[in-house]
């Protein structure tokens, strides 16, 4: 998108036509409201970026099918020029015509027709260049099908448009699609407008609508349309005096037969523009972030680099793109409906005055007066940016151009930077509503993303603070490491040929996050279908499982106009977090996953785990949709975003912690209830406080030893590419356990039945050594311990008999022989060592000993409510070869 410059933001509103009462679609589901259909189609318009078109920014749905469209806007337009009543001619006309045609040609190339071309929809910017407005109305309303009003203005309608009729189906049951107008109808409208500009007055003003339309239709019977029109309006002499190429242009535009009328593209190449065409260079769309070609290929720096920063007091906000400005405008308290109400564009009657008198059983209502406020008023209201500029007046220029290199620490901090760091400690919800904070974050991310993948590390670092909602789609793609020619890859996948999965996809899509306007629109469904099919087709070893649709939803929502990116993100996400979950037979993967999950519950919350096991409420009953969809099936989109902002920073074992955190929020209710109530509770999950959930899961994650969540069916480590990236500053949160450990002290795969029999997780000897800081050189009392406060303190409990213990044990471990540890009731036998154990309750407890008893011992500890109990994988034998076991010196 281009910089905002001197543009303004305009808004206009209209009503989508109401649906007939209680009519169902062919799939038996209720019809999609027209406003949602329009909203879905509108999204494409946001990608229509061209210097001759007013950029579309946003659409919002109000009450009762009202839509408000936000777009770039200019106060100056051709209507004003006409009002001066001075004929314009010569180069100026040609220039206007050429620029309008440029815009039309770009639209036609994207399969769009303007249809509503009129002087007041042809705006001019400060420099006098043309900007076409409302060019998307015909597209977003499905050629006028979804609105009650006709699109276009009587004087400017092309004859074939009039002849084809309004095509408005009077009865929705026999819905006959209106015949769409072709791109050449715009050329006619342009001809009329140019004619008006040439003669300096509006045409057909003295006639009423039907006479106007009839006159236009009769123009087909005359030989020389120009002369007839000129005579009709008494300006034959002006027309006669026009320069030849202007006259030629008008004649070509006002050709009655559409087949003989040229298209915009043909006109642009015509020789009559030879004077003006050299002024313009062809437009190239700026390259997107993920493209195979060089993004900097067209970059040219001026000879003197100082020229770039010549103007001192520029308006920094004007250098940002319009969607950013609009986003900030909303944050700064902008309210579309209020602005429109203030300008009296929205004039709604009190609802009590518009009630119907009588309703049939089938819902048809009578006695309702037609509400005049629903009439179409195409006035565009300029949104005042005063409030926003006022809000941002203290933001220094540096904030708009932050330095990205790492050595910022020695720079003096300005006052606003302090303020920002103070803002960073506020709750996320408040930060997301803070104008200045978001401005800074958006600019920072925008610049970082422009430098992606070079600045990948810094994106990770900043994402740990938060991800600004406006750039979330790209930021996630960066976090997932999406790279390369994604569009070409996506295009190469066959998404049309029917496959057996189609039926299931077709059933699932209309049930997936349909409260959301975007995802419930037909456009959204089509995109859903394509992305899902692309994934299924391109992953032949995996299959579609119900839940994949939910998983796709957040990516599609964020990258609605970039299916390829949504597909690429999804393809990157699944192997990272859901490796092999979508196998045809995924039971072993899921079973292992759920077992590890129940071990994690026991590890973090023994009381809850005991209760759930007692009532038989196992994770298989509720947690499969959680993990299979990474919680997208459980939460609404806005919560998923906050959850995933953190999830994407974590490794594949982070979801376990989220699961435990959710259970902890429901803890009281779960503990108080039996099996049936628990099932009911989870069938309709109560509201979860997502920010608390995120905090809690990070906390849980820090307490979990890395190897505790080892799964043999997890994604195998990538040996090839990542290994050279030593500079990648990944913390232990983001790197996977499997990625890092390869030694023989690592965990070894065990049979699922064995895993299931153990209540507590195993940890690897390597982890134990690491956690106790038993590295060969340093002692565990070295000061380095202080530098890592996040590492959990732990207690090693040796359960071998005391002889074995004395022969050699892990330093710092205590000895509680298994045989004498528990009473018959299962309680711990009191003693000095058990007292130590008691005093360590709440810290990580590692059970060490001979292989056969440790699991049992751990289970006993969990039973009596000890949290964070884990066992050493392979028992003490694993530790023997390390030479780290010590024999205690005799006590003196």
């Amino acid at each position, binding site marked *: 998108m281009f910089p905002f410059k001197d543009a303004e933001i305009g808004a206009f509103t209209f009503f989508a036509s109401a649906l007939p009462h209680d009519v169902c679609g062919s799939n038996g589901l209720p019809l999609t409201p027209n406003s949602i259909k329009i909203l879905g189609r509108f999204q494409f318009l946001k990608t229509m970026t061209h210097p001759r078109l007013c950029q579309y920014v946003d659409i919002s749905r109000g009450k009762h099918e009202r839509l408000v469209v936000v777009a770039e806007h200019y106060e100056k337009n051709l209507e004003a020029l006409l009002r001066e009543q001075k004929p314009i001619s010569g180069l100026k006309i040609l220039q206007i015509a050429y620029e309008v045609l440029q815009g039309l040609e770009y639209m036609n190339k994207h399969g769009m027709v303007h249809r509503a071309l009129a002087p007041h929809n042809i705006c001019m910017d400060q420099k006098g260049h043309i900007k076409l407005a409302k060019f998307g109305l015909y597209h977003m309303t499905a050629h006028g099908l979804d609105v009650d*009003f006709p699109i276009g203005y009587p004087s400017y309608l092309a004859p074939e448009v009039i002849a084809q009729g309004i095509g408005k189906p009077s009865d929705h049951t026999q819905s006959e699609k209106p015949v769409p107008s072709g791109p050449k109808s715009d050329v006619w409208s342009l001809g009329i407008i140019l004619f008006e500009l040439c003669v300096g007055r509006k045409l057909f003003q003295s006639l009423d609508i039907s006479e106007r339309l009839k006159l236009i239709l009769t123009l087909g019977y005359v030989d020389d349309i120009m002369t007839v029109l000129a005579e009709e309006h008494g300006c034959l002499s002006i027309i006669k005096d026009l320069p030849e190429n202007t006259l030629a242009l008008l004649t070509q535009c006002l050709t009655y037969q559409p087949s003989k009328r040229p298209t915009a593209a043909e006109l642009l190449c015509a020789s009559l523009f030879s004077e003006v065409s050299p002024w313009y260079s062809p437009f190239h769309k700026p390259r997107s972030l993920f493209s195979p070609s060089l993004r900097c290929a067209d970059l040219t720096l001026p000879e003197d680099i100082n020229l770039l920063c010549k103007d001192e007091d520029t308006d920094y906000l004007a250098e940002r793109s319009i969607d950013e400005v609009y986003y900030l405008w909303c944050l700064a308290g902008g309210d579309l409906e209020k602005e429109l109400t203030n300008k009296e564009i929205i004039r709604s009657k009190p609802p009590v005055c518009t009630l119907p008198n009588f309703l049939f059983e089938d819902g048809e209502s009578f006695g309702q007066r037609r509400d005049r406020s629903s009439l179409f008023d195409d006035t565009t209201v300029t949104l005042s940016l005063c409030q926003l500029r006022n809000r941002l007046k203290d933001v220094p220029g540096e904030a708009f151009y932050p330095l990205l290199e790492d050595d910022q620490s020695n720079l003096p901090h300005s006052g606003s930077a302090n303020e920002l760091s103070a803002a960073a400690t506020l709750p996320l919800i408040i930060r997301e509503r803070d104008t200045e904070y978001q401005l800074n974050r958006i600019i920072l991310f925008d610049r970082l993303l422009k430098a992606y993948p070079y600045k990948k590390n810094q994106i990770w670092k900043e994402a740990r603070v938060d991800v600004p909602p406006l750039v979330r789609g790209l930021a996630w793609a960066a976090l997932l490491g999406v790279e390369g020619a994604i569009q070409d890859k996506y295009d190469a996948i066959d998404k049309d040929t029917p496959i057996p999965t189609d039926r299931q996809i077709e059933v699932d899509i209309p049930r997936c996050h349909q409260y959301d306007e975007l995802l419930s629109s037909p456009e959204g469904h089509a995109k859903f279908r394509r992305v899902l099919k692309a994934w299924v087709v391109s992953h032949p070893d995996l299959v579609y499982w119900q839940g994949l649709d939910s998983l796709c939803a957040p990516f599609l929502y964020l990258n609605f106009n970039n299916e390829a990116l949504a597909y690429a993100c999804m393809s990157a996400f699944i192997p990272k977090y859901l490796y092999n979950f979508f196998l045809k037979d995924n039971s072993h993967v899921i079973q292992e996953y759920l077992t590890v999950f129940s071990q994690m519950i026991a590890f973090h919350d023994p009381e809850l785990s005991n209760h759930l096991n007692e009532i038989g409420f196992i994770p298989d009953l509720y947690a499969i949709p959680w993990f299979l969809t990474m919680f997208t099936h459980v939460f609404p989109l806005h919560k998923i975003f906050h959850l995933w902002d953190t999830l994407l920073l974590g490794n594949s074992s982070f979801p376990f912690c989220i699961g435990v955190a959710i259970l902890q929020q429901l803890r009281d209710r779960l503990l108080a209830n039996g099996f049936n109530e628990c099932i009911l509770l989870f069938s309709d999950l109560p509201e979860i406080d997502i920010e608390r959930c995120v905090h809690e899961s990070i906390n849980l994650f820090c307490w979990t030893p890395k190897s505790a969540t080892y799964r043999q069916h997890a994604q195998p480590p990538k040996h090839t590419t990542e290994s050279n990236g030593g500079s990648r500053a990944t913390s232990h949160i983001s790197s996977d356990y499997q990625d890092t450990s390869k030694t023989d002290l690592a965990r070894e795969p065990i049979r699922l039945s064995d895993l299931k029999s153990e209540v507590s997780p195993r940890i690897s000897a390597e982890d134990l050594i690491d956690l106790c800081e038993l590295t060969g050189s340093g002692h565990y009392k070295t000061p380095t311990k202080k530098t890592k406060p996040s590492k959990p303190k732990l207690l090693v409990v040796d359960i071998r008999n005391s002889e074995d213990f004395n022969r050699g044990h892990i330093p710092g471990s205590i000895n509680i022989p298994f045989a004498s540890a528990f009473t018959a009731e299962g309680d711990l036998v009191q003693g000095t060592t058990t007292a130590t154990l008691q005093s360590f309750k709440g810290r990580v407890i590692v059970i060490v000993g001979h292989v056969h008893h440790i699991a049992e011992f751990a289970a006993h500890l969990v039973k009596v409510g000890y949290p964070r109990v884990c066992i050493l994988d392979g028992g003490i034998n694993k530790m023997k070869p390390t030479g780290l076991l010590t024999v205690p010196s005799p006590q003196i």
Partner: protein
Amino acid sequence: MKPKKEKICSKEREFVYKFHAGSQCFELAVPLLFPVQEKNPDHLHGRLMLLHNLPCFIEDDLKRALKQFIEEETIKDYDLEAESALEVVKCTEGSSEKLAQAWTKAYIKTTLEYARPEESSWDEDFADVYHDLIHSPASETLLNLEHNYFVSISELISERDVELKKLRERQAAEMNKVMQELGKTLTDQDVNLVAAQHFESQQVLENKWTSELKQVTTIQKQEYQEWVIKLHQDLKNPNNLTLSDEIIVQPSQLQEPVDARGRMYEEQQQLEESFTIHLGAQLKTMHNLRLLRADMLDFCKHQRNQRSGIKLHRLQTALSLYSSSLCGLVLLVDNRINSYSGIKRDFATVCQECADFHFPQLQEQLEVVQQVVLYARAQRSRKWKLQQESASRNDEEEEKSKNSDRNQSNILPGEFYITRHSNLSEIHVVFHLCVDDSVRSGNMTARDPAIMGLRNILKVCCTHDITTITLPLLLVHVMSEEMTIPWCLKRAELMFKCVKGFMMEMASWDGGVSRTVQFLLPQSISEEMFYQLSNMLPQIFRVSSTLTLTSKR
């Protein structure tokens, strides 16, 4: 014209592409369906490459050729279609006239620019004025005035009641005398005559009072409206601020009988329980539910004995009258649109207790409804006929003839009419839902007309911003013998489930506005029954968890 269009719509054209590989020349021919879907060109070439195993070096060229081919052919289609339309206009006489008229009609009906200027309607202007005033400091004065009018009407009504009572007593005494003489001096005929006379004089007296009441309310309404307009004008003019303290509340002189009635209500104390629920699978919306045991009309009556409460109620109702949070009530009525019997009569009495300063009187509103119903039936039968002509189906005809048998002005179960009120204590809108005797039966289903009517009521609530709706939970106003405990439980379960379903549906209509739904139980229901039902509600609706204020572990 139609067959021609179909031909164009599903046209298949052959896309031919030639390319060289080394010395060999290949030709690719693919049938393409026109008009091409917007998104297709991008996806299409990838598919072609894959399907025909084409070499990658032609990819870009193929893409370009394909795009060009589609563009050209699409333009051709457009031209063809446009010209055929123009041809039709040229050939058919009067078609240009028809087209022009259709366009003109569309413009006039739907666009502000060409629409006929609006005749400013008086009640909408009044609505604006009133809404301004009630949200200004003048609201106090306004309410005082309304109250004074109310008091004077109440006095009139009690005067009427006293007079009627006297008349009835006198007549009763007379009748007694006559009855004693029956068989002696007087015959049955004489008794009948006397009875007829009595009835007639009662009617005369009632009519007299009715007309007097009507006159007074009309005068009051006119005075009131004039006064409101004047006050509004005065307030705009900052110079005179004297008007506002002109009106002081007149104390009502009707304490005694009212108190008696109030005590009577207190005996049957109102039972009430509130719930907060969350609806929706992923995105949840919060709603309030209330279960109460009370009389339907309690929401309409002004409690005269509660001096402080009345004003608050009035203020609340007045403030929201022209706002977008209205209160509605569902009243179950029979199939005739009048106010002669049963709950309809009681409701009409309540309506009369206080003049409506904003909307027409109930009687006038009902007359309008009657006309609308006749008009609606006429529309319907015309549509029926049209459909019959196009597809002459016998079974439908039968149904139609069945329809025409009954009185056109009566309404059917499931249909309802709406009246608007500004003079009721907590209600702005009343839905008069027609039900028949089937509501008493034990095996009502979710497809019952009454339930469907309820659904339509909730839909109207959506489209007209009625955010609080009160409805009879058991779909009856008074209990009778056949309504046993199992009957009540079954009915309540059905209603709870249906209303839950409708509320979830509503969320998709209006995007999830928080609402209040009040379920009303008849006064005569036992306390035990009430608690049984209040236990049932949270099982059907998901009641949100209580906020626990204990600190985290």
